[in-house]
């Protein structure tokens, strides 16, 4: 495990073009803002869809609400991109971070949940119209999705707890907490 982690840190850390960009002034907080916008898009649209599966707002036809899902996928792609940029810039801050390990676990389970949804129940669920109820398996998948994405967010937010970044002890104007000046 230690060897693998060391190899990951070295390999990920060798992508100099990304880390050079991320070390320019304000690049990190800008990417974090985009990361949070992405998570809102993902959780807002997918969370709504999950709640509909669970029976809320059941006048909404499933197929109609599913038209919002591409926006959630867009948020996911945005977060995969910005997240990879953080990882490529400071690999050791993540590879050795317990919260990151848990976040990857939650993300894998959420991905598996998505795969099961589309491969096993989507065909049955898609035609469910206004007032219709979805099978219990689909409800379970919806509940799991809500739980797993909340888990991803919580672990993401706790990353800094396991990796507290340091502020410049001598306060200046609006710059001293930046990881890179």
């Amino acid at each position, binding site marked *: 495990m230690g060897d693998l982690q060391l190899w990951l840190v070295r390999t990920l850390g060798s992508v100099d073009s990304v880390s050079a960009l991320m070390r320019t002034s304000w690049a990190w907080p800008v990417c974090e803002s985009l990361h949070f916008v992405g998570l809102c898009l993902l959780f807002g649209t997918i969370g709504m869809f999950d709640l509909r599966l669970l029976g809320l707002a059941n006048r909404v036809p499933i197929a109609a609400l599913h038209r919002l899902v591409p926006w959630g996928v867009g948020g996911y792609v945005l977060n995969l991109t910005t997240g990879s940029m953080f990882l490529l810039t400071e690999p050791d801050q993540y590879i050795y971070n317990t919260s990151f390990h848990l976040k990857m676990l939650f993300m894998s389970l959420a991905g598996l949940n998505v795969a099961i949804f589309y491969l096993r129940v989507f065909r049955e669920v898609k035609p469910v119209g206004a007032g219709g109820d979805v099978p219990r398996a689909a409800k379970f998948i919806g509940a799991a999705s809500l739980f797993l994405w909340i888990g991803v967010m*919580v672990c993401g937010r706790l990353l800094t707890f396991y990796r507290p970044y340091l502020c410049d002890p001598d306060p200046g104007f609006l710059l001293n907490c930046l990881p890179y000046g």
Partner: protein
Amino acid sequence: MDPVFVWVESSTFSIWTRESTSVFAFPTFLAVHAIGMALVAGMGAAINLRILGVAPGVPLTEMKRFLPFIWAGVWLCAASGAILLVAYPTKAFTNPFFYAKLIFVALGIVQLRVIGSRVLGDASLDMTPVRGRGRLLAVSSLVCWAGAIGTGRFLAYTYIRLLSI
């Protein structure tokens, strides 16, 4: 304001929130704030997208069912935000980003109320494309939530004064 900051920052709760190494102190309040944000800005954005014509087959009045989740998110953010503010009052109140965030959030909440009552509450808009002021509200609501997210995130990287004590 300094005496107030000193008084707040020297309170037991403020010190605990700020200095405790427990995951249930500062990190938990941050996590709750993020979940609240995802509910408010995320589901808010989804409703705005529907108003702008994405997913036109979704009955607009039925989107009202999601409003309680959004308001729950508002309260989660307000409560956790107040606690984060008790932990670092000087840091927030001396930072221009904090005031920008407050303005975005206030406008966002006002717009959310108007969207809830005027747009989602208008049965004539249920299945017909929304025009005019409804669309404008949706766009400006999206801008406000994005602005609140961006300024909120920048707060973590900026300060003029950290503490008054």
